[in-house]
């Protein structure tokens, strides 16, 4: 694969470009989709392709193709080079990354067993999760779900001498369940598991937990609107607190005036209890790799320490622009996309309290398991429906809530963090966070 990437770089250089980069990806994907409580489709995909980025006189062009034969690659190089000539000159362009020493791959990013998982084995996993939900309680039914298993190889080569190869595996499974009792339906309960390896992955646990969550939301009631304490589950905290945070520390957003934290390095941006680290080398990490999608070594970057904003996250372009080093946060969705800044694994430091202890300290409030609504990453405003929520009074869970609106502002909420829980969980966004208790959120039951 490296040879293909290298040949694209060579072909581009022959066309007279200043710099060139080839990104080759090869993937095998199994997807099993559950819908209406049944296996709806099962797919096996073999996918490969190349993305070619060239720079000519500070002008960039990019082209991709899903075919890797010599002729297609040469045409793609020509397309990229042609696009570079019509692209306006970008005076801020400095250079593609230069080769650096790459750290050894963290443990647990590639699992041979997962890469070779057969279709039958994948089907059986789905069945396990499915049966677990069904067996949990006869009132529970499965609405939808999906198992995705992927094995990906990438090769990056650029004209400064970067020549890298890596492989990784990934498995994720989710289920959405609903419980029905005497004509009343619970809200849709979502549960998932996601991992780089088969070790510690359990489809059965997903089924059990999804069923349990669905049952817990039967008998839902309404409450009077109030402003108070809200405990956010890891998934909800990721969506409404950390998505805006991630957007605000993205150096590209900072440089374009899209971040409210642009001039806040060294200043307090959240409660003192919050420490957030981006760690691209976390063993078994969902977003881990020895190098990022431009070939820059992965690293650990302290983003917020005890409430103080320490660093933004950079790729090579945004770092060069301000004379800094890339933090190794360039990511691509696939060979068909250019790199852009993304977190690797965002680790939120844990506190000491269990979820039960957190609940026991709430006088009046709610615990939100799932959120369905809108979050503006720029302004931090969020507003939407708290799903799978329960009402807490006097330190105890009283009853599940009917669909309830919550709204607030992420940046205000980050300052209103009362407690960060103990038990951290990886979310599908690669944010590793415990549940978080925030005060002063508006809660309106419909």
């Amino acid at each position, binding site marked *: 694969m490296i040879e293909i990437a290298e040949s694209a770089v060579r072909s581009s250089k022959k066309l007279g470009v200043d710099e060139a980069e080839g990104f080759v990806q090869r993937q095998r994907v199994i997807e099993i989709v559950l*819908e*209406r*409580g*049944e*296996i709806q*489709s*099962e*797919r*096996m*995909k*073999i*996918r*490969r*392709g190349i993305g070619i980025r060239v720079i000519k006189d500070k002008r*960039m*062009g*990019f*082209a*991709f*193709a*899903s*075919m890797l034969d010599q002729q*297609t690659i040469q045409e793609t190089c020509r*397309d990229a080079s042609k*696009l570079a000539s*019509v*692209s*306006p000159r*970008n005076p*801020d362009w400095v250079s593609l990354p230069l080769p650096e020493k790459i750290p050894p791959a963290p443990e647990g990013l590639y699992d041979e067993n997962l890469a070779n998982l057969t*279709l*039958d084995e994948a*089907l059986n996993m*789905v*069945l396990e999760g499915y049966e677990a939900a069904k067996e949990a309680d006869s009132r529970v039914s499965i*609405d939808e779900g*999906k198992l995705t298993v992927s094995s990906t190889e990438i090769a990056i080569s650029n004209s400064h001498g970067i020549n890298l190869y890596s492989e990784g595996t990934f498995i994720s499974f989710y289920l959405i369940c609903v419980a029905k009792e005497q004509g009343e339906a619970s809200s*849709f309960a979502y549960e998932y598991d996601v991992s780089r390896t088969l070790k510690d992955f359990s489809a059965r646990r997903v089924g059990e937990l999804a069923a349990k969550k669905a049952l817990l939301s039967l008998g839902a009631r309404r409450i009077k609107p109030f402003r108070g304490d809200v405990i956010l589950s890891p998934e909800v905290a990721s969506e409404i607190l950390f998505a805006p945070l991630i957007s605000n520390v993205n150096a590209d957003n900072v440089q*374009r*005036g*899209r971040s*409210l934290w642009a001039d806040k390095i060294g200043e307090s941006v959240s409660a003192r209890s919050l420490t957030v680290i981006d760690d691209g080398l976390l063993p078994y990490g969902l977003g881990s790799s020895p190098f990022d999608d431009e070939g820059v070594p992965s690293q650990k970057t302290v983003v917020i320490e005890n409430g103080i904003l320490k660093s933004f996250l950079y790729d090579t372009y945004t770092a060069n622009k301000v004379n800094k080093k890339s933090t190794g946060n360039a990511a691509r969705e696939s060979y*068909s996309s*250019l790199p852009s800044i993304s977190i690797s694994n965002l680790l939120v430091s844990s506190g000491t309290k269990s979820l039960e202890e957190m609940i026991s300290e709430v006088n009046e409030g709610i615990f939100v398991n799932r959120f*369905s*609504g*809108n979050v*503006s990453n*720029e*302004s931090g*405003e969020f*507003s*939407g*429906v708290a799903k799978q929520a329960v009402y807490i009074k006097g330190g105890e869970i009283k009853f599940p809530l009917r*669909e309830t*609106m919550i*709204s607030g502002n992420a940046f205000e909420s980050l300052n209103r963090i009362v407690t960060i829980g103990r038990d951290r969980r990886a979310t599908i966004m690669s944010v590793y966070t415990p549940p978080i208790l925030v005060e002063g959120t*508006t809660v*309106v039951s*419909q």
Partner: protein
Amino acid sequence: MIDLLDTCLSRVDAEYIEMRGHTRRVFSVVVKDGQVERIVKGLNRGACARALVDGSWGFSSTTIIDKRNLLSILTDARILARSSKPLKKRRVKMAPAEPHVDEYKTCMKKDPRNEDLESLVGEVLDADTEAHEYSEKVVSTTLNLSVVDDEIFFVNSEGARIKQRIVRCFGTARIIAKSKGNIASAYESTGRQGGLEIFKDTPLREAALKAASRAVRIAPKRVVPGGYYDVVLENKIVGLLAHEAIGHTAEADLVYTGSFLSNKVGKKVASETVTLVDDGLMPYGFGTMKYDDEGVPTQRTVIIDRGVVKGFMHSRETASQFGVTPTGNARAWSFEYDPIIRMRNTYIEPRDWTIDELIEDIKDGYILRGGGGGQADFNGEFMFAVQEAIRIKNGDLKESYRGATISGNAFEVLNNIKGVGRDFEMNIGICGKEQPNYVGIGGPSVKTKLLVGGR
């Protein structure tokens, strides 16, 4: 490619098997704040096989197109169908469909293959400049222009052999404005099925300026106070509602599992001023195609006729379950996906009210403008973001507010409709239902009642 597909298909024996070949050429330009963020040209080509064995589907795809690999996906699809069969309770049957041998091509004045795509870069940059010059309060802009050129080949074991070429040109503008320490963003789009002439008829700069003026207007404003109000929903939001909150509940696979519309054929679910259609043949529609991805001709499917439920959207599989004729709604995003029931162009039909008439007898309410993201459950419960809310007091427009969410049950909203406007408009959408797809969404502005959520 279609001959190769046909040859491979004829070599295997199965109850039912189909193959699709798909070449997608894309060209896209993204401009952020006066800088070209990226110019991309791309080519994706692949093929897939879907086999039905004893009522069980199997699917396999590849990006390597030669005889050996095509025969291997045909084998994989059948193996998959066989091995997943014991896990499926329902046995799939397909409603009959005539095997068509036909070709379709988007009607275009300026076919992108004969045009100099690179010159479009200048157009995006100009639109960006205008948006920035609109006001010093505009702090950031992201403009996108895309040309997506699809060639789809379909063959099946019943003898169908269909070639379609579908070209879509579209653009989007997201503008962020800052004022009094607040940041607000606004979004507009342009585009349809057709050639590059689209950008002459409805230029990207118009969308960019519209978004810029809204972002600047709402940035200094407060967030709307919440409550249950009489509202006028602008046509863009009506399209969103028609698709997201109502349309999905009329997709036969969701009807089958008990969506809001199950068992409601012939029943009244909306005010008699409401007629809702999913149309696969609409000229220039973003979701228009002559045949769906099962080779079934598309049609104009009436879902709600003057308030009464008429029918649903079907694939061959659900048409057989419901004992009806397939409607041509089975669509796949690419060769990497099996076709599922999707909308094409979904809209509420216009009537004759003007905006002034819709507003005039509202004592205390809002006119809501500019659609945003949102969610809807198949019981009709929905929640959308809207970009701007303008207060109506005794029939007059008053102060405007920044963004809000609207929520409720879509069928309650349809029942509450007291007036349907004449300002019909179709917009582009990319809908996600496990896999994305291009759809048209539209309607006129309407007057109704719903919950406006603020802070």
